[in-house]
């Protein structure tokens, strides 16, 4: 499709305008993080700090046990990602590559679970984890990830349905058992969608606020988002360290996105073909 000069100019003008809207808050955040408190609370607002005070980051980091929060966030993010990738690959493979009694009904149930509002199951889950003695530990955030997640299973299954049947046949002739066929033949082929699942999980878990809010109650167990929210709640007027920690916290998801954006776009078109 060819575009005229005027249409092209208008397109770029609109793209630039919206880019400002989407980027400006990031800019305000990073810029405020580098200011002095006095500069941050000046009116009219300052756009840029008078000097790049990178020491603000270290000072903010030391003001609360953010090192501990970071550790907790890393533990939860890494373990859940391993759990989701492994369990969802198995489950999706079962649904996509075998015919068995109740398969379609079970898959519909799996899809249906995505519609259940969060708060319907939250109260009994809280009681369940309390009974198990898991409240105020990281377990409620970690353990369920080892049992698969409907959306990720759906994504992986969509991918697996597109692979011809010859692969299993060849593996079987070579004498591989069912699990070997899955692990040696299919897992390597699933690299791209598994990376997608991993990255989506990293973002979701790293960013999660409600789960930690409900299941954790002592500071030493906090994850970064919960620690930051608590810090903001207690020190509402210290905008500079708040912005500094916020800037540091978003590095991980932004980096994950930068690394995996082509998987995200491709994965989404794969899912929509269903």
């Amino acid at each position, binding site marked *: 499709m060819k*575009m005229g000069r005027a249409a092209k100019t208008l*397109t770029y003008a609109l793209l630039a305008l*919206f*880019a400002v809207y*989407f980027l400006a*808050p*990031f800019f305000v*955040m990073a810029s405020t993080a580098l200011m002095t408190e006095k500069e941050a609370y000046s*009116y009219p*607002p300052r756009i840029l700090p008078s000097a790049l005070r990178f020491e603000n980051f270290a000072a903010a980091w030391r003001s609360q046990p953010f090192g501990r929060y970071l550790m907790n966030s890393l533990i939860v993010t890494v373990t859940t990602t391993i759990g989701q990738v492994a*369990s969802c690959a*198995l*489950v999706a493979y*079962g*649904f*996509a590559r*075998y*015919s*068995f009694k109740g398969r*379609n009904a*079970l898959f*519909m*149930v799996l*899809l249906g*679970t995505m519609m*259940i*509002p969060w*708060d*319907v*199951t939250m*109260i*009994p*889950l*809280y*009681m369940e984890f309390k009974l198990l003695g898991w409240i105020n530990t990281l377990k409620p955030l970690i353990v369920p990830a*080892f*049992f698969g997640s409907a959306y990720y299973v759906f994504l992986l299954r969509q991918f*697996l*349905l*597109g*692979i*011809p049947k010859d692969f*299993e046949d060849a593996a079987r002739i070579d004498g591989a058992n*069912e699990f070997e066929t*899955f692990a040696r033949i299919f897992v390597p082929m699933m690299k791209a969608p598994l990376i997608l699942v991993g990255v989506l999980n990293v973002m979701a878990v790293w*960013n999660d*606020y*409600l789960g930690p809010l409900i299941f954790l109650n002592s500071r030493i167990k906090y994850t970064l*988002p*919960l620690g*930051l929210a608590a810090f*903001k709640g207690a020190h509402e007027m210290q905008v500079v360290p708040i912005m500094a920690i*916020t800037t540091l*916290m*978003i590095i991980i998801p932004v980096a994950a996105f930068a690394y995996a*954006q082509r998987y995200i*776009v491709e994965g*989404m*078109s794969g899912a*929509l073909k269903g």
Partner: protein
Amino acid sequence: MTKAQRRIAKGRGAAVRGAIGRWGATPYLFILPWLVGFVAFTLGPLLFSAAMSLFSWPVLGAPRFVGLGNYRTMLTDDPQFWKSLAITLKFAAIFVPLNLAAALGLALLISRPVRGAALFRSIFYLPSVVSSVAVAIVWSWILNSEYGILNWLLGRLGLQGPRWLQDPAWAVIAMVITSLWGVGTMMLIFYTALKSIPRDIYEDALIAGASPIQQFFSITLPLITPSFLFNLITSTIGAMQQLSLVLLLTKGGPLKSTYFYGLYVYENAFRHFKLGYAAANAWFMFIIILVLTGLIFKSSSLWVFYEHEVAGARKGGNA
């Protein structure tokens, strides 16, 4: 189970091997993790909360069966229930159409054939990858009525900005503005739908002398209605369940003007410890969501076009 899900689940036989039963327990072993997790973390809690909603269930002391008492109290004797429901519906009614329109508009913009479109796609999506905590922190600063950059900009334009999050008349609007920043996910879904429209349809239309506006309404829009349906449903469900931004931005204030339904359930459960009552609240919202989704699906046969129908119409309408 909804119609679309049934449609998705059907017609999936192609890549499957063997007859039913040929593989014995093997397939069940593969899906076992999900089956166990489903019973332990979804089905069990779901049934348990349905049962809980029929009890008066304090944290300490024995639960007492009250039948439909919780539901009766909620509907007839709890003004906050209706207020929270109204606030949530108001938010959804403003946010969902705006979000869909913005997502579609941006998707159209980034699918224009210009250089750098991929970069802008990433920029527009970027806010969708950060935590709600970060979103709330950044926007509460931008919306700050004394030092915030937004009101300063409005002032430069000669407008007196409202007190946003501190003004009961504006707090819901401030929430909408903040939420719209995360429009990227839906934009990406529209974008992939737009990209999957075959180019030759437009070429045919161009030869037939259709203007760009005619092309948009008679080709583009009908062909992306399935993704429109998907976005409408996800957006509606998301809006009805809004909780983290409310907790982080306003905690329900000022004057309970943003006391969303999600917050109402959350506080009934984890602050007032009325567990049975909160379970009833949550189930009521579940039913509303099911009804809304059902209605949207029911209406979808009137406005959603699937590719085979369009392809058929195209063949028929070539003359």
